[in-house]
């Protein structure tokens, strides 16, 4: 339970960090270390070189730019969770983050690190897929912006190249009048989700659903938008009969095979249950004009 041998560098500038990372094909970026260090303790990960970016200038803090919340690479989970501007502009973020591990882990772990780790059961990748967040990476060839839909490729695999550092990630502010909800089912609070679900929607004057977004984690090799369920609910009243019909459209999205935690059929039942439970909560919040 001790990490294997590695070399360590703690650059002060982004330019140096990129150059050091590019110098070794087995180098990895270290931010908060809350996923990487346990993986190294288990010797699942054995990087030859760790590039610690905590002292790199310009990677700390949260900014609000227009309709976007900018989360820089060294922003810890707990900072984002407690930020009063973020709570006002996108209350779904704090609601979701209650489920990210435990406070001592959230004090150290970074949001961007969680995205780059890309555990398919993790909450923050789900949130980015749900809200179409964007991810900005810098490498030897310059800077590029990656859509969440393209970023998460498979189990612990993203479209970030080995020699790229994600410098920030952006989430949108929730539109006025939208309702939202997040919940998950776990064996123990703070564990990775068996199934997690996020929902954002708006209601028109007649109380019909429009612009609903649903995304789930724990059901596949990456977080998944539930487009078939969205299509089944848009234009409908969010009542129990419509929800029961729509929830059936979520079955095919669950592709995670039976594993040591639970079975595929149980995951399907949980996802269907979460859809039927969370959409009414989001709708009630939209009716109450939650974000005013």
């Amino acid at each position, binding site marked *: *339970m*001790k*990490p*294997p*041998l*590695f*070399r*360590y560098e*703690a650059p002060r500038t982004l330019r140096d960090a990129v150059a050091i990372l590019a110098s070794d094909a087995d180098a990895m970026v*270290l931010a908060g*270390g*809350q996923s990487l*260090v*346990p993986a190294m*303790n*288990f010797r699942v990960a054995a990087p030859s070189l*760790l590039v*610690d970016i*905590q002292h790199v200038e310009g990677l700390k803090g949260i900014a609000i730019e227009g309709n976007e919340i900018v989360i820089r690479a060294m922003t810890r989970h*707990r900072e984002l969770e*407690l930020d009063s501007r973020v709570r006002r502009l996108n209350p779904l973020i704090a609601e979701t983050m209650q489920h990210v*591990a*435990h*406070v*001592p*882990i959230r*004090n*150290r772990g970074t949001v961007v690190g969680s995205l780059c780790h890309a555990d398919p059961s993790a909450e923050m990748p789900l949130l980015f897929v749900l809200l179409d967040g964007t991810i900005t990476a810098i490498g030897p060839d310059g800077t590029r912006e990656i859509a969440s839909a393209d970023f998460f490729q498979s189990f612990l695999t993203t479209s970030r190249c080995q020699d790229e550092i994600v410098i920030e990630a952006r989430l949108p502010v929730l539109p006025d009048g939208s309702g939202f909800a997040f919940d998950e089912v776990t064996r*123990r*609070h*703070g564990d990775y989700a068996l199934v997690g679900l996020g929902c954002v929607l708006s209601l028109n004057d007649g109380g019909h659903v429009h612009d609903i977004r649903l995304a789930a984690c724990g059901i596949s090799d990456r977080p998944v938008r539930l487009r078939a369920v969205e299509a089944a609910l848009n234009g409908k009243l969010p009542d129990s009969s419509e929800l029961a019909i729509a929830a059936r459209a979520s079955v095919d999205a669950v592709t995670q095979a039976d594993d040591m935690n639970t079975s595929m059929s149980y995951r399907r039942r949980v996802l269907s249950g979460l859809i039927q439970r969370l959409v009414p909560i989001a709708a009630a919040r939209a009716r109450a004009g939650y974000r005013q």
Partner: protein
Amino acid sequence: MKRSAIRPSIPERSDDPLVEVSLVVNGQPIKRTVSVRMLLSDFLRHELGLTGTHVGCEHGVCGCCTVHIDGKAGRSCLTLAVQANGCAIRTIEDVASEDGALHPVQQAFKECHALQCGFCTPGMVMNVLSRFEEREPLDLSEAGIRDLLSGNLCRCTGYINIIAAVRRAAELLGRG
């Protein structure tokens, strides 16, 4: 048949890259040269002899190794010593007064019999203490306290008395 001699297979020289780490531990400036792969938990225990920080699972699940890193609770087994370079670390050794008077959180654990073997207690106390020291509102319902403690495992007493101790600590600290 001659038996081969028993010999340790420990290499005489370590290939570990070394790094100088300067940090403040319990108010005292510390400088050490250690392996870059040394965990903060091992740094505290082996380099500084602060064995109050316990090591349970070494992968962030049990919470026994919780210390304060720049005033916030964190897992010392998920932090490399070199990551704590320049940080202020507080361990369980710094919680009671120098004259031995217990901190209200420790006093509450004692009064409520919130420990049996005591292995998990330093991590529990450091976690609970950091939440009381944070200015955020605390949910002191049973569910809220269970959530607060959910990152710390106890394998003997069970949680009933630990929950009572958190409630008692809140009273003693005027947060009830």
